C-alpha cells in the first residue's frame, strides 16, 4: 500500500502518545485535585509517582518476580497496582498532614517551599535506602513475553496487550474518579471546597476531611501511574522530578483545577511529545514541549478547560 510506512509510523506514534498520555493524565489529575482546593502546587507529587513505582516493584518481587510469579498474571498486575495505590495514598496523607497543613494560613510561598523540600526529601530518601540503580519490572519476562507479543494489529502495527491494559486501566481509573467527583457526596463537597473554601466551611463541610480525601485520590492515582509507567520502562529514584514537571504541564494545559482538563491535558501532552519526537527530533522535543507550556501560560493561563481567574478584592 502506498505510503503505508508513513501510516504505520503515524499509528505507532499515536499509540505511543496514548500510552504516555494516559500516564501523564493520571499524574495531572493529582495536581489538579490538590490545586483546585488548596491552590497549592504539590511539587512532591512527581516523587509520589516515583514511590508508587518502587512499591509496585517491591510487591512484584514479593509475589515471586516477573518471570516466576506465584499468582496468575492478571492477579499479579492487579495486586501490584493496588499495593502502589494504597501505599501512595498513605504517603500523600502523611505529606499533607505534616508538611502542608501547618502552613495552611501561611504566605503562599511557604507551602511551595515546603513542597520543594518534601520532593527532595522523598527522592533522595529512596536513593538512600535503595540505591541509585534502576529497577526494571522486566514485564518482558512475564509469561515469556506474552504481554508484548499478544495483542491485535492495526495495519502493520501490533498493539501489544500490555499497552492495551495500561491505556484501558488508566481510563477506567479516570472515569471512576470522574464519577466519584460528580456523583458522590464527598465529590460534591470537594467541588464546593475548591470553589470557595470559606463558604464551604460555613455550610458545614469538613474542609480538612475533604482535603485529605483529595490527597488520597490524587496520590493513589499517582501510584497507579507509577506502576503503569514502570511496566514499560525502568524506574529509579530520580524520575519523579521530570514526571512531575510533565504532569504539571499537562494539568496547566488542560486548565488547572479542572478534572476533564487534566485528562485532556495529559493526552495532549502525550501526543505532543510522541509526535515531536517521532517527526521532528528527539533532541529538541523537551524544549518544544516546554515552550508549548510557556506559550499557554502566557496567552491562555487558564488552560483549555479552565475559566479565567477573577481576583476578588
Amino acid at each position, binding site marked *: 500500500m502506498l505510503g503505508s510506512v508513513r501510516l504505520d509510523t503515524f499509528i505507532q506514534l499515536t499509540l505511543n502518545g496514548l500510552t504516555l498520555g494516559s500516564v501523564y493524565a493520571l499524574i495531572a489529575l493529582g495536581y489538579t485535585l490538590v490545586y483546585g482546593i488548596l491552590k497549592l502546587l504539590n511539587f512532591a507529587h512527581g516523587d509520589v509517582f516515583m514511590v508508587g513505582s518502587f512499591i509496585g516493584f517491591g510487591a512484584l518481587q514479593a509475589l515471586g518476580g516477573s518471570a516466576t510469579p506465584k499468582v496468575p498474571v492478571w492477579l499479579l498486575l492487579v495486586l501490584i497496582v493496588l499495593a502502589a495505590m494504597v501505599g501512595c495514598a498513605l504517603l500523600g496523607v502523611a505529606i499533607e498532614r505534616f508538611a502542608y497543613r501547618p502552613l495552611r494560613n501561611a504566605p503562599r*510561598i511557604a507551602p*511551595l517551599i515546603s513542597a520543594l523540600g518534601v520532593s527532595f526529601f522523598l527522592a533522595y*530518601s529512596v536513593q538512600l535506602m535503595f540505591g541509585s540503580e534502576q529497577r526494571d519490572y522486566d514485564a518482558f519476562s512475564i509469561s515469556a513475553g506474552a504481554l508484548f507479543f499478544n495483542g491485535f494489529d492495526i495495519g502493520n502495527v501490533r498493539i501489544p496487550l500490555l499497552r492495551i491494559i495500561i491505556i484501558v486501566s488508566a481510563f477506567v481509573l479516570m472515569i471512576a474518579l470522574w464519577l466519584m467527583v460528580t456523583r458522590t457526596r464527598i465529590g460534591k463537597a470537594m467541588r464546593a471546597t475548591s470553589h470557595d473554601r470559606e463558604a464551604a466551611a460555613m455550610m458545614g463541610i469538613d474542609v480538612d476531611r475533604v482535603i485529605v480525601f483529595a490527597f488520597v485520590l490524587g496520590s493513589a492515582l499517582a501510584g497507579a501511574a507509577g506502576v503503569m509507567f514502570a511496566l514499560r520502562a525502568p524506574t529509579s529514584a530520580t524520575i519523579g522530578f521530570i514526571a512531575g514537571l510533565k504532569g504539571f504541564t499537562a494539568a496547566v494545559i488542560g486548565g488547572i483545577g479542572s478534572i476533564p482538563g487534566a485528562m485532556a491535558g495529559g493526552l495532549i501532552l502525550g501526543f505532543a511529545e510522541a509526535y515531536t519526537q517521532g517527526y521532528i527530533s528527539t533532541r529538541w522535543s523537551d524544549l518544544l514541549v516546554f515552550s508549548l507550556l510557556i506559550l499557554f501560560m502566557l496567552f491562555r493561563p487558564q488552560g483549555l478547560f479552565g475559566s479565567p481567574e477573577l481576583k476578588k478584592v
Partner: protein
Amino acid sequence: MDDRTDHPLEESVPAAGTTAGPQIGKDEWVARISERRTGRGGWLGKVDERARAVPWWAWLTLFVALAAMLPVGFESGYVRRIAFDTVVFMLLALGLNVVVGWGGLLDLGYVAFFGVGAYTYAVVSSEKFDLHVSALVSIPLALVVGGIVGLLVGLPSRRLVGDYLAIVTLFFFQIFLTVTNNGESIFGKDLTGGPNGIINVDPLNVFGRELPVSRDGIFNVAYLYVALALFIVVYVALRFANDSRTGRAWRSLREDPLAAELMGMPVQWLKLTAFAFGAAVAGLTGALVTGLNTSVFPQTFEFPLLITIYTMVILGGAGSQAGVVIGAIAISVVLEVLREPGDARYLFYAVAILSIFAALRISRRLAAVVGGTLVLGFVAHAVAESIDASWTAGAPNGGGRVAGWASDWVIVPADLAGWLGPVAYITLIVLILALTLLHGWYRLALLVPTLYLAAFVWENVMITKPEPTRFVILGAILVAVMIARPEGILGEKRVEIV
C-alpha cells in the same frame, strides 16, 4: 505593670517566648509591635539587642577582616578552596535573597542565571572563539548579561503570580539545560560545547596580568580575596538598593501587592527589577567561578544546586542579608563535613546534643532524656552483642576519634541486612513525625528511643552515602524551617494580607 493587659489591641498576643507563626488578619505594624514587646528574653535577648545596635557596616568589616585572615590560620589549599566555595555560595544566596526575600517571587530558575554568567565569561575569555577579554570587562559583562536575561525571563512572567511564576522559571531552567547540553550543534555551530563544556578558559586577568589559579596545584589564595572583594561590593550595593525607594517599594509589593498597585506603584516593573538584580548577581558569580575553574560544564547547573541555595536563604532568613550569609556558611560547612564519614559523625552528635540542650535547657527533663538515651543505648548494645556477636562487630565507618565510643554505644552490625536499613529509616521518620503530634511526658518518653534509632540510622545508613544524605538533610531543613520558623535565623516575621 503588664503591658499586655493595658492594650486591648494585643489581647491575642501570645505569651513571651512562644512563636505563633504568621498571623492572618493582623497588620504588619501590630505584628512588629508585639514582636518587639515579646522579644527574646534572658541573656540571648540582651545579646540580640546589642547586636542590633551595631551598624551593619561594622559587622561587614569585622566579618571580612576575619575571613581575610583565614588563610593565615589555615595553610591548606583545601581549606582555602572550601572558603572560596563558601564565599561563592554567599554571593549566590545574596542574589537569591533579592528575588525571594525582597521581591517575594519564587524563582526556580535562578541557577540558570548563574550558568548564563559562567558561559558568558567562558565565551569571551577563552580559546573557544579566540577572544581573550580582560576580567575587568568580562565580569561586569557577565553581570550585565545575567541581568538582561533575568529581565527577559521576567518579562513574560510579570503577569503571573506565585505558583505560575515558579513554573515558568523552572521551565526556563530546563530550556537553559537543554540548550547548553546540546549547544554543540545549534544550526551546525558549536556555541556552548555541548556536554563537554568549554575548557581552556582564561583565569582572571586584570590590567594584562593573569592571576594563576594554582601554584604547584595548590589553590591560589588570591582568588579567595577576589571573591571577598566582590562579596563586599555586592553586599553594599544591594544594601543601598534595599534602603532606597526601590527597596521600600519591594517591601510593600511583597506584603500586599494589591495595595501596592492601588497606591500607584509600578508593580510589574518592580518585579522585573528584583528578578534582574538577582540574576545579575548570579551572573557575576558565574564569571568568578569560571575564572577559577578555567572551564565550564553544563552538569554543574543542576536542580540540586538550586535547592542547596534555597535552603541557605530560607535557613538564614529570606529578606535579611546577614541572615542568608550566615545560612550560606552554615550549610556550606555542613555539606563539606558530610563528605567524610569520620567528620560527619561529629556533626551528628554535635547537632543532636546542641538541639536537645536548646530545646530542653538545663533541667531535669534534659537529664532524663540524655540519661535515658545513653542507658538505652548501652543496654541495647549489650543485648544485641549477647544474642549474636556479629551484630555489633561492625567497624564504624570512617574512623575518627568518636568512632570508638560510638561503636560501643550504637549497634553497628558487621553485615547490615538489606532490609534493615530501609526499615530502620522509615521507622525513624515515622517516630519523628509522631513526636510532633505528642506533648508533655509522652513526647519525652518517645524522644529517647527516637534518638537512639537516629544514631543507629546515621551510623549505618546515612554516613556511608554522603550524596543522598546531604539532599535528604537539605529537604528536611526546608520543610522544618518553613513549619517551625519560617523567618529563618535572622529574617523578619512576615504577615500576608489576604
